[in-house]
């Protein structure tokens, strides 16, 4: 690790400026969250009047309780969070599971159609869900999977990026490992579980963060496919709460907003090291 500033001209004054700018950056980034956090502790009338508070207010508990369990008009964040959680976990874990075995197959075997399979997977990089959205909806509709968790999860669960990531990593596994396994009489699946998976832990962790965030934050696809209240995700539910601004209860929207960003932020912060490592070290 090097340091872009040479030691010969580091001065305390410049340090101070650097820190100041960085802290300013941190504050600017934190400001929206702070406002929303504070706003969620006040009542609807205060916010509606425009008295945007910078300090906490007295209504935190009741706002969050209402947002969590819902009102007569709206289902609560509780069920929406659950939907989002199931969806994000299923997408993250599902993608990892499906792509790791695909990459394993493509790298460690020889079979007819291997290159074709690889290219087929590779091409899907160019087909994000947004460009095939209505026909995909029709397929889901034909299968009767609209407004089901399956319909939410399955179309986004095959990812080329993860496959490519695993593939690259697998290419770096030394031949000796494979030879040793063969000599021991171990079959490919035994090799997979005993050698490949443990080695891939960092990659899997990094991917988990990325895919969990991706899954949790899905917008366009759930917008089409999950309109029933039972399968609504919290990100979409929150935007729908804004609706026509005439009736919006801003304090509840803010509370839901905070709830909506907690899980992915928690995942990123807690798994930060692996996440960053997974993203950037693959450059090496």
């Amino acid at each position, binding site marked *: 690790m090097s340091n*872009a500033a040479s030691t010969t001209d580091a001065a305390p004054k410049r340090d101070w400026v650097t820190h100041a700018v960085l802290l300013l950056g941190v504050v600017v980034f934190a400001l929206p969250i702070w*406002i929303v956090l504070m706003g969620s502790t006040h009542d609807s009338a205060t916010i509606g009047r425009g008295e945007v508070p910078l300090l906490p207010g007295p209504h935190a508990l009741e706002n969050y309780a209402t947002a969590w369990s819902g009102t007569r008009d709206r289902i609560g964040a509780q069920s929406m969070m659950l939907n989002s959680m199931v969806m994000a976990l299923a997408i993250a874990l599902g993608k990892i599971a499906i792509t790791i075995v695909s990459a394993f*197959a493509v790298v460690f*075997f020889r079979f007819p159609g291997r290159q074709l399979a690889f290219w087929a997977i590779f091409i899907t990089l*160019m087909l994000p869900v947004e460009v095939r959205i209505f026909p995909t909806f029709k397929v889901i509709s034909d299968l009767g999977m609209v407004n089901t968790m399956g319909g939410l999860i399955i179309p986004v669960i095959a990812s080329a990026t993860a496959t490519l990531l695993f593939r690259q990593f697998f290419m770096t596994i030394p031949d000796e490992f494979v030879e040793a396994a063969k000599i021991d009489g171990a079959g490919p699946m035994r090799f997979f579980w005993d050698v490949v998976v443990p080695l891939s832990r960092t990659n899997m962790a990094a991917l988990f963060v990325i895919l969990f965030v991706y899954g949790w*934050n899905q917008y366009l696809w759930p917008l089409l496919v999950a309109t029933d209240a039972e399968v609504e995700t919290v*990100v979409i539910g929150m935007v729908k709460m804004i609706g026509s601004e005439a009736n919006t209860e801003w304090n509840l929207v803010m509370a839901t907003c905070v709830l909506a960003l907690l899980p*992915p932020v928690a995942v990123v912060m807690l798994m930060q090291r692996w996440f960053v490592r997974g993203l950037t070290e693959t450059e090496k």
Partner: protein
Amino acid sequence: MSCCGTSSARTGPERARGVERKVVFRQRWLPYALLAPQLLITIVFFFWPAAQAVWFAFLRQDAFGIRTTFVGFENFTDLFADPLYLEVVRNTAVFCTGVTILSLGVALLLAALADQQIRAATAYRTLLIWPYAIAPAVAAVLWIFLFHPQIGLIGRALNAAGIAWDYKLNGNQAMLLVILASAWKQVSYNFIFFLAGLQSIPKSVLEAAAIDGARPMRRFWTIIFPLLSPTTFFLIVVNLVYAFFDTFGVIDALTKGGPAKATETLIYRAYVDGRVNLDLGSSSAQSVVLMIIVMMLTMVQFRYVERRVHY
């Protein structure tokens, strides 16, 4: 979704061309079984719908799909002859450029500064990393609470200071706001890469330059920036793709393409035409245009990012 750095670049065509493992397994059916889930989903939910999108682009049909006529390229010619569509193209270009430049610029500045504080760098990274986790739509809602003309902190302040701030009525303000909200979210992702890139620059090179008497700013532009160029280039492509697609949520939450189509991007218009206006032909034609753009961006990424320009 290109999330992970140049890993993708190196595993693309170059890798496939010749570098393969020497020691492999030779089972017959096992690899097919392993590939089956992904391939099945890929065929059913990627290729089949994509093919349909392309096919629909050449049809004109009513909302119920009862009357369909093959119209050749008419949907496409209608699109490109429509001045409003061209305006949407322009909006998208402005939007994507704005988001990319803003988020890259801010991220580079912060990363360069953080890099100078070797101990605190990780702390700053922790403090700046979390916007990555926020959904674009959520980010948009956060910014509503800052800039709403009636309930937003800054929005009210602007109006009180005499500036007529209302992004629901003023197209330029709306565009500015969606750019801000989108860029804000991306800075942390770019920051991670820039910081890692800066930290991987060999110390010796910089010290040599310093000894030669080069001032910090000059060192930055003549040495550091070129060494960062693969990272920068990669990030440009990633940010462009992000601005193209992932920002749908931002626009839907903030402006819904308004006012008067001022913030309507290509992806948003394709959605509205298909969903609200029930015009599947035009929407599919627009999807095809988007597909082509993505393909070009992806190819650029693989072709050029691969060739890392060092000295």
